[in-house]
C-alpha cells in the first residue's frame, strides 16, 4: 500500500510552514507561488530541511516523527530528490554520477548504471561531463541517477524551470514516459499549472505555508473553491462580491450584478471567471453581460487577448480568444457584449 503522509510544522523567521500532504495517488502535485513553502515541504520530506514537529511517512516507513523522536538522516530515507538545477556532480562523468548512489564501483553496479543510462537513451554519453550536456540530457541523467537507487518515493522540485520553453514541453511528456515503469509515488512541486495539470492525479494547492485546497487535479481546476486557489489554477478574472439575495451577487470590481440559477451560499466572498469562457454577444444586451470596451489587445501566435475596461475601473477583465472563435470574430466583427455563462461562474470563498 503506497501512501505518503507528511504533516510538517516549521517556524523559520517570520514564515510559518504548516502543511499536511496525505495521498495514496501515484502522481502527486504541489502547486504554489515561489515562497509559498512548497519547496521547503519537499526538502523536509527528503530530510534536507529540518522540521520542528510532525510526522512523515512514505511507503509504509516512518521517516520522521517528533513525538517518537524519529528523524532519519536523508541517507537512510530512500527518497529520490531531483533538484531544480539537477545538481549533477560537475567533476564526475555521467557514468560516475549515476553510480554515485550505488556505493562500491563493482561490475554489477556498473552494469546497473549502464542499463539505466540505456533506458534513458543516454548510452554513449557515459564519459561526458555534466557541463557538456544539454538541459534535457542533464535532466535525464539526474533521473537515471535517482532511479538506479530504487527509491521508495521520488520528489521533483520544479523540474522544468531550468529549461527553455520548447524543451519544457517535450520534457514534460518525456518525464511521464520515463516514470511509467516506476511503481512508487512521485511528488512534483511547481508554480506552473500546465505542468501539474498534465502530471498529477491529486493536487495540493499551497499558499503562505498552508494547504488551501486539495483534491483530484481536474476537480481542483474545475472547482477551486477559494479565491487564491482559483488564481493559482490560472483563473484570470477575480472580483470580490456582495451577496444580494439567494440568486444574485454584485461583482464589485466589475460593477455588474449577476443572476444565478443555483443558490448562492452565504459564505461567498469572490467570484471567478476564466478568460477563455466568455461568450460574445452581438446586438441586444442579455443577462449577465459586460459591455465590450477593449482598452488593449495582445496579438499572440494562436490567441488574441482582449483586456476589457470595467465599470468598477479596476483591473481589466481578460478575454482570451482562440481558434474557431477567432474566425467568427473576423467574420462578424467585434461583439457588443460579453456574456458570463452560469456553468463557468466560480463562486469562491
Amino acid at each position, binding site marked *: 500500500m503506497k501512501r505518503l503522509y507528511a504533516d510538517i510544522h516549521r517556524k523559520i523567521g517570520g514564515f510559518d510552514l504548516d502543511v499536511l500532504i496525505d495521498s495514496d495517488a501515484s502522481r502527486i502535485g504541489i502547486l504554489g507561488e515561489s515562497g509559498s513553502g512548497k519547496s521547503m515541504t519537499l*526538502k523536509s520530506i*527528503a*530530510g*534536507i530541511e529540518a522540521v520542528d514537529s510532525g510526522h512523515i511517512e512514505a511507503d509504509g516507513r516512518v521517516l520522521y516523527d517528533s513525538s517518537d523522536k524519529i528523524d532519519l*538522516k*536523508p*541517507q*537512510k*530515507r*530512500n*527518497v*529520490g*530528490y531531483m*533538484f*531544480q*538545477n539537477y*545538481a*549533477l*556532480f*560537475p*567533476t*564526475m562523468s555521467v557514468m560516475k554520477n549515476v553510480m*554515485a*548512489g550505488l*556505493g562500491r564501483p563493482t561490475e554489477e553496479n556498473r552494469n546497473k548504471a549502464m542499463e539505466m543510462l540505456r533506458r534513458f537513451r543516454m548510452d554513449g554519453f557515459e564519459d561526458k561531463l555534466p557541463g557538456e550536456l544539454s538541459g534535457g540530457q542533464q535532466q535525464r541523467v539526474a533521473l537515471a*541517477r*535517482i532511479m538506479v*537507487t530504487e527509491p521508495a518515493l521520488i520528489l521533483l522540485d520544479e523540474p522544468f524551470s531550468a529549461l527553455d520553453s520548447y524543451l519544457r514541453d517535450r520534457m514534460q511528456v518525456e518525464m511521464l514516459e520515463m516514470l511509467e515503469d516506476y511503481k512508487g509515488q512521485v511528488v512534483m512541486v511547481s508554480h506552473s499549472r500546465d505542468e501539474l495539470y498534465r502530471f498529477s492525479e491529486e493536487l495540493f494547492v499551497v499558499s503562505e505555508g498552508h494547504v488551501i485546497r486539495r483534491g483530484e487535479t481536474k476537480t481542483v481546476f474545475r472547482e477551486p473553491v477559494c479565491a487564491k486557489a482559483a488564481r493559482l489554477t490560472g483563473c484570470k478574472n477575480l472580483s470580490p462580491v456582495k451577496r444580494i439575495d439567494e440568486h444574485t451577487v454584485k461583482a464589485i470590481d466589475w460593477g455588474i450584478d449577476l443572476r444565478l440559477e443555483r443558490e448562492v451560499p452565504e459564505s461567498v466572498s469572490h467570484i471567478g471567471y476564466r478568460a477563455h469562457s466568455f461568450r460574445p454577444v452581438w446586438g441586444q444586451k442579455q443577462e449577465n453581460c459586460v459591455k465590450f470596451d477593449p482598452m488593449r489587445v495582445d496579438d499572440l501566435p494562436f490567441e488574441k487577448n482582449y483586456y476589457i475596461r470595467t465599470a468598477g475601473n479596476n483591473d481589466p477583465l481578460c478575454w482570451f480568444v482562440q481558434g474557431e472563435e477567432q474566425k467568427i470574430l473576423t467574420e462578424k466583427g467585434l461583439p457588443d457584449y460579453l456574456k458570463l455563462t452560469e456553468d463557468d461562474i466560480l463562486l469562491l470563498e
Partner: protein
Amino acid sequence: MSSFIDLAKTLDWSPLWISLKTGVVATIISFFLGLWAARKVIKKDHRAKSILDGILTLPMVLPPTVAGFFLLLIFSRRRAFGIFLNDAFDIQVVHTWLGCIIAATVIAFPLMYRNARAAFEQIDANLVYAGRTLGMSELTIFWRIVVPTAGPGIASGTILTFARAMGEYGATSMLAGNIPGKTGTVSQRIAMVIQDGDYVTAGFWVVIVLIIAFFAIFLINMITGKHMKNVRKW
C-alpha cells in the same frame, strides 16, 4: 656568470633542502588542517564564524615576529608547555627543525584555510544535498564531491601555502634559529650572507627563490586557468 658557476660547485646546498623539506611538511599539515577548519567554520552561524575566522586568519595579518614571540612563549623550554613536551615526550621545538615546521605551518596555514573556505562557500549546496539523498556518507560527499568541485581554489591555496611556508623568515628565525645544516633556511641564509657583505652568494640564492616563486605562480595559473576558459573578457 662564471663566478656563479664556481659558487654553485662549492656552495653549501643545505638551506635549499631544509627550505623545501619545511615547505612540503608544513604544506601537508596545513592542507589537511585547513580543509578541516574550513569545513567546520562554514557550518557555524554568523557570529561564531566571524570570531573563528578572525582567530584562524590572525597569523597571516600579524607581523611574523609577533607570531614568533607567541610561539616562543608556548614552546620555550623554560615554560610549562615546553617543559611538558620535553619531559613527557622528549620533544624539543626551539632551535630544531621541528621549530621550522611549526613556525612555517602557523604562518602559512591561514592561506590554505582562507582559500579552502572561499572555495567551499562557492559550492552549490544542492550538490551536498543530492549526495545525501543518494545515500552517500558525509565523508564520501566531502572527498568525492566537495573537494573536487572546489579543486581550483584548493589547489591555488596549496601552492600559495607552500610558497609562503618555504619563504618564511621572521617566526622561523625566532623559534628555530639559523643553525646551518639544521634550521638554516634559504631566507635566513640570504639575510646572513648579506650581513657579511657577500652579495654574490645572496644574489645566487635570490635567483633560486625567484625561479621557485615564478614556477609556483605558473602552476596556479595552469590549474585555475583551465576553468577560466569560459570567463568572458570585459
